[in-house]
């Protein structure tokens, strides 16, 4: 089993609902976030394209943050979710530097924090808070090894890309184009 997320950039309107839903679900302190919106504009008026995408930790199969963690606080759990054990984190920030996606931040309580794919919800059979709230249903989540999971079905018959493939991290966020 490997959890993954597909983000449909054609549907995403960049409303940031995923950001605030994550904030209230996971008690992320004000001024910080575990997911965020990126807007890319290309072309010149009036031939212009806009890509909007909701980003977060890529839960990489080959995760540099886990490799560089000196205490083992960053680790991988079932389904490939990259987690941080707050009590074991010394806040050194090596993982923040190693992440090609800038997906981690220093929590004001002194540890490093990031997206958990709402593991506490998955354990109860619920979906992640961001997927559940998205008004455009542009987020698809599930076990990418299951051909009938929502994420696998979303990837079928669509073109997609991953971010920073050159980093070789085998990221698990797929952006439908």
């Amino acid at each position: 089993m490997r959890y993954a997320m597909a983000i449909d950039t054609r549907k995403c309107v960049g409303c940031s609902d995923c950001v605030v839903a994550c904030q209230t679900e996971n008690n992320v302190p004000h001024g910080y976030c575990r997911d965020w919106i990126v807007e890319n504009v290309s072309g010149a008026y009036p031939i212009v394209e806009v890509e909007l995408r909701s980003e977060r930790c890529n839960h990489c199969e080959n995760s540099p943050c886990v490799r560089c963690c000196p205490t083992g606080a960053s680790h991988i759990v079932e389904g490939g979710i990259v987690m941080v054990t707050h009590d074991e984190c010394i806040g050194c920030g090596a993982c923040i530097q190693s992440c090609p996606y800038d997906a981690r931040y220093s929590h004001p309580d002194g540890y490093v924090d990031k997206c958990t794919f709402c593991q506490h919800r998955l354990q109860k059979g619920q979906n992640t808070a961001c997927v559940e709230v998205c008004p455009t249903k542009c987020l698809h989540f599930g076990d990418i090894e299951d051909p009938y999971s929502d994420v696998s079905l979303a990837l079928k018959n669509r073109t997609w890309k991953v971010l920073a493939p050159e980093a070789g991290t085998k990221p698990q966020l797929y952006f439908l184009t």
Partner: protein
Amino acid sequence: MGAGATAIGLSTLNIAGLNLAKAASSDIPVSDEEMTSFPTYCEVCFWKCAGWAYVDKNKNIRKIIGNTEDPHCNGRLCPRGTGGVGMYTDEDRLKTPLIRETVNGEQVFRKASWEEALDLVASKMKDVAYKYGPASFALFNHGAPGSHFKHLLHAYGSENEGEPAWAQCRGPREVGFSATFGSWIGSPEPTDIRDTNCLVLIGSHIGENMHNGQVQEVADIIGRNATIITVDPRLSTVAAKSKYWLPIKPATDLALLLTWIHVLIYDNLYNKDYVEQYTMGFDLLKEHVKDMTPEWAYGITTIDPATIRKTAREMANAAPSVIVHPGRHVVWYGDDSQRERAIAILNALLGSWGKRGGFYFKESVAIPKYPHPAYPHPEWSWKDNLDGKYPLSSMAITTEMLAASIPEMGYKHQIKAWIVAGTNLPLTIPNKDLFKNAAEAVEFIAVVDTMPMEITGYADVVLPECTYLERYDTLRAAPHREPNVALRMPAVEPKYETKPSWWIAKQLGERLGLADYYNYDDYADVLDWQLKKMGTSLEEMRRIGIKKFDRQSGPLYLADGEEYHFNTNSGKIELYSTEFADLGFDPMPVFTKHPEPEDGFYRLIYGRAPMHTFSRTSNNHNLFDLMNENAVWVNPKVAELWDLKNGQMVHLKNQDGITSTFPVKVRVTERIRWDSVYMVHGFGHDNKKLTRSFGRGASDTQLITNVMVDPMMGGTGMRGNFVTFITDKPGKEAEA
């Protein structure tokens, strides 16, 4: 961008963030089972999505989640609804009643008890009624608190109640569609986007306006590759997702609509059976648009004739499953009712009204009226003051009510005092001088709000309302495909000394000798009485939040060839409006040219961001985190001309010499035309009590001083304002 990237302005907020995080003492999510959920419907915008407020064991509201049964949101709240919890936690909230007094020649607010504040408001109401008659006491309102104060004023003897929803927002579309189909659009719009094959948007920026159910349906049709045609001088979010984006020259939309009508008729693309059966005036319309060819429109709109013909054909191919969307905030150029008429006529030619994928027949459930004595007949109402002007205004015109508050304006009947509930007039009403002069002229102003919005600065008495998460309110019974009712109940006790509007109004009513109109102890009693009459109960609604009812009015759509009587003079869809003709207005829309910017000035276009509503959410910490200021969008060519850099702070000055109080950040982007600039509405707060949003961004409303009034319904056209850049010493005015 990356994690923590919303932490804009972190340098100043680090400390606050740290304290808050510590106070919360844990970042471990609380499981849903450990919380209690209470039904509510959202009050952050007018879409009123139903949801559940989750409260933990310490009586903290942790999150708000959409109600899956609710057709407004389908279980998915928008960012503002999800962030609605920030309205409850905002430490800048109004906390106690306040009374204005003069200390050493300086006007200050002092804290007061409810008893004292209510006594004062009631005594002023008695005083005004005695001196000028109760009709001279007016109400300005928005949203749920309005209904409670309307009841109070009706019982007291005034029907002078106005909301910006009419003359500053959607009035023209109700006039244009009513003249054509005999029916308002209303809210939520009965646009059957879910099933449409072609959606046409005239400046409507769905996705940036977060009208939830509508955004959801647009996302669905994007998913199945339906045609979207977006007309906008700015590449809006939805324009970027459309099959056709028509980057029109601003202020020329009506010419495009008329030429589309021309093409549908003269290229024989209109829905002949539908037009023959349901409409009147086709031959007159045909003659009217004879010369309005795409070549004619090209010179006006800058949209090339081939694109005009191709998009008209797209609509016709999809018909009747096509929607030319009426939009919502449509007070642009003063001929807005006529532009909306053209939109309605297009829909009629395509046969989309009453058809699947077009406009469905909406239905709402009737809420039983809780018994009370008959209201007294008011001595006069806002309509008597119009003297024949704006004959199609079926709701009060706020700007006319403001003008009637200024004795020098010479209105027959004068307004002498106001209650303002839930609307921040200074950041809503264009031409700030009108508002200011009116506020200074009236004898008394009471303001009911949850936040120290700018309007509270004009109040004699401020009455702090609790948020929607802390109160019972009227039932929501908005029209939809399925009639439904939704309950709002308190999830927690009101914070500070705040009170629900129903309580405030009742207290005032009792002080005014109107106790007969308040024959209940708690508003919950009223709700239970109403719900039981509807076949449910407060007890059941507390468990389910929303209940749906069977339709009584028939199917959602017209069957092929079905006979149907439209509520117009002729009983038909009026392509030629007899109503307009009778009143001396153009029975069919006529294009007129609107003023252009002078050299060095750019048309000010404004709109919405998905994470904010009006000016009311910019201080909400959750939503502030998502967007904490607006920016002025500038085309790169213009930026080069002015040597503007991305992120640079500038002041804006309009055609009347009004300069923005605060500087605003420049966003250099290819998404905007070279003859226009764009700003998100609702920023540039100048009340320091809004500690987060004070001084952030610029207020578009402040720069809107040229108002083009719609002679039919009094709408305040606001898109005829032009701004230029002041690049030297940005911040000077802000410090003053």
